[in-house]
């Protein structure tokens, strides 16, 4: 599966459009990470646990999007975008979306 954040695939022409594909996941932190974050909130600095968690979740969302694109018969996703929203205390939604296409 070819992925790109640009409007086309470099050096290839798009033969067919399949429309928007997306993948999302809602994750929450476990209590241990929250306690660590509480400590970091006093001293400042990077919350490594959160960085990793969000990155892993984003990869999951991306995998779901790729799965959807594959099921449509696409071989590439163009104009890929990521979005994150804090929906409630301690939980976030990671969302990946793009346009599934077939390139030669």
């Amino acid at each position, binding site marked *: 599966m070819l992925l*790109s954040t*640009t409007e*086309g695939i470099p050096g290839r022409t798009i033969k067919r459009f399949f429309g928007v594909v997306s993948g999302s996941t809602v994750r929450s932190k476990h209590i241990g990470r929250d306690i660590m974050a509480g400590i970091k909130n006093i001293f400042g600095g990077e*919350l490594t646990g*959160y960085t990793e968690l969000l990155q892993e979740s984003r990869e999951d969302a991306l995998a779901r999007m790729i799965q959807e694109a594959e099921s449509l018969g696409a071989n590439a996703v163009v104009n890929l975008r990521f979005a994150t929203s804090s929906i409630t205390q301690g939980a976030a939604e990671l969302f990946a979306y793009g346009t599934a296409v077939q390139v030669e």
Partner: protein
Amino acid sequence: MESAIDAVVNIAVPLVLLAVAFFTGRRIERRHYQSIRARENELRMLPAVTFRQIPSAWVVDSFGVVSGSVVISIDYFKRFLAGLRTLVGGRVASYESLLDRARREAILRCKEEAHARGYQAVVNLRLETTRVTRASKNNRATAGVEVLAFGTGLELRRDPR
């Protein structure tokens, strides 16, 4: 007697935390900026641009999505300052530097991934900022801010400059 102890705890603990956070926060921020500047210099040869299309003069050999993200938190002292600032309004400098650090760090990580994968440029770089909240109900404060930088890394036949 008990109320006296309570008063001491209620006043002394935040004061000690403020003092500790003032020093640790400043130190962490200074070190972070040092590291950001050094790495920005190292990766100067790898441009990350917000062009939506690949310039037609560039011959692309291969490409892939690259990203970098970071969650960082402000320290207790700066959060206290920001709280005071909201009383009079105006620029909240403590959050400005936090966001600046987060964005530059995210872009750097994105570029570092591009470099590790053998790309010479990143096009259509995008930045996303999200507030990360903590799960505990009694603490409604922001745990930190997440910045995600992502784009398309390009392996070019010829140097882009």
